[in-house]
């Protein structure tokens, strides 16, 4: 059995680690709350925009827009993969990357090659390790994504889609379902599905609006805005999920360190007791030898 001194030293190390992981957990909690607030702050815009789109599509007969047209003859698509810049967040990155890879493989089997737009250092490093081709996108994105950072990416993707260079655009990210549940998902950004224009059930459909310019022209501007906000929401949700994953990982680490300290303390006590017993035996043995 290890000597008591070595056990004490190890216990001290584990204690220090526990302090660090606990601090990281607290930081992640604070960041998660901020990220969640940001994710919910974009909800009103999304909802109003969706309502506006459905109001408009109810007055136009048939909604046709370049962003909704499926381009079947192009064997190329684009995928935005959102990973984190920092590690120590449990299975967050590996889950997202696994989902992305399996989707890419399915697409490749169907003969569609994909441009990968990788966001986050962790994903970039992994793809470098695999030797796959990718584009490093938005390297300067932080915990607080600004809309004007995401906008150029969305516009670029829409431009390429409308020009017929790519057949579809997917986003692979960690969807934030609730504080207790997040799941890695591949969401289709383009072509826009029909539910984008008729998703909201509204009672205000009978309101007679004045339109300026005409509804078709308005809709042509609204749909790109819908795509932009959808992409932006993917980012805000991914960041909230990342912080919650880090929080959970650090909580587990803190608890594991606590368990380790308990067991080390037990070992130390036993080692100390053994040492005392041995010493006593020595003394008693010595005294008996004198008699």
């Amino acid at each position, binding site marked *: 059995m290890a000597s008591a001194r070595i056990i004490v030293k190890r216990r001290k190390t584990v204690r220090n680690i526990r302090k660090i992981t606990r601090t990281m957990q607290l930081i992640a909690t604070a960041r998660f709350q901020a990220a969640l607030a940001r994710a919910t*702050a974009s909800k009103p815009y999304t909802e109003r925009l969706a309502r506006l789109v459905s109001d408009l599509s109810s007055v136009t007969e048939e909604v046709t827009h370049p962003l909704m047209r499926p381009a079947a003859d192009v064997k190329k698509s684009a995928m935005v993969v959102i990973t984190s810049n920092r590690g120590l967040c449990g299975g967050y990155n590996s889950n997202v990357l696994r989902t992305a890879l399996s989707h890419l493989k399915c697409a490749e089997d169907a003969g569609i090659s994909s441009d990968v737009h990788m966001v986050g250092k962790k994903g970039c490093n992994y793809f470098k390790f695999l030797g796959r081709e990718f584009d490093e996108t938005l390297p300067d994105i932080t915990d607080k994504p600004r809309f004007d950072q995401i906008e150029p990416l969305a516009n670029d993707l829409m431009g390429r889609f409308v020009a017929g260079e790519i057949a579809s655009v997917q986003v692979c990210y960690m969807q934030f379902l609730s504080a207790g549940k997040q799941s890695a998902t591949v969401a289709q950004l383009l072509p826009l599905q029909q539910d984008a224009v008729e998703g909201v059930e509204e009672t205000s459909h009978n309101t007679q*609006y004045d339109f300026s310019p005409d509804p078709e022209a308005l809709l042509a501007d609204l749909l790109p805005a819908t795509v932009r906000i959808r992409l932006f929401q993917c980012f805000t949700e991914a960041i909230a999920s990342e912080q919650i994953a880090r929080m959970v990982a650090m909580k587990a680490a803190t608890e594991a360190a606590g368990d380790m300290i308990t067991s080390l303390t037990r070992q130390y006590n036993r080692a100390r007791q053994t040492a005392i017993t041995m010493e006593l035996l020595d003394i008693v043995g010595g005294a008996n030898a004198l008699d």
Partner: protein
Amino acid sequence: MAKTSTFHCSVITPERPVLECEASFVSFPAHDGEMGALVNRGPLVCKLGIGALRVESPEGKHTLFVDGGFAQIADNHLTILTEQAKKKDEIDVAAVNALMGEARSMATATVEAVEAKSDAIKRAAIQIKISKS
């Protein structure tokens, strides 16, 4: 509906709701010129251009810079959905001046480039005007 002299006005961007207040008069930059709205205005959906949004409320006046988006009026609720809205104190004067410089030096080889340049200049000029008001 009860007789009131104000209507609800909200300005919302993707990042956050910027302004929620009761207003007696709102002037917003429509795509084809400035448009004003008073209480009990008929339902309207309108595309926005670049310009200043002026809100007159019982508590005081607000002036915001708005860059594109949409305005919707229904049942005395005006909703401005825009991708960029800045209050007077959020405008970074130094950055805007730099933008103005950039805008002035933009090339004007094609019709689109001329339009982009005039938009960029307008964007900067309006922000400068709001920050000085």
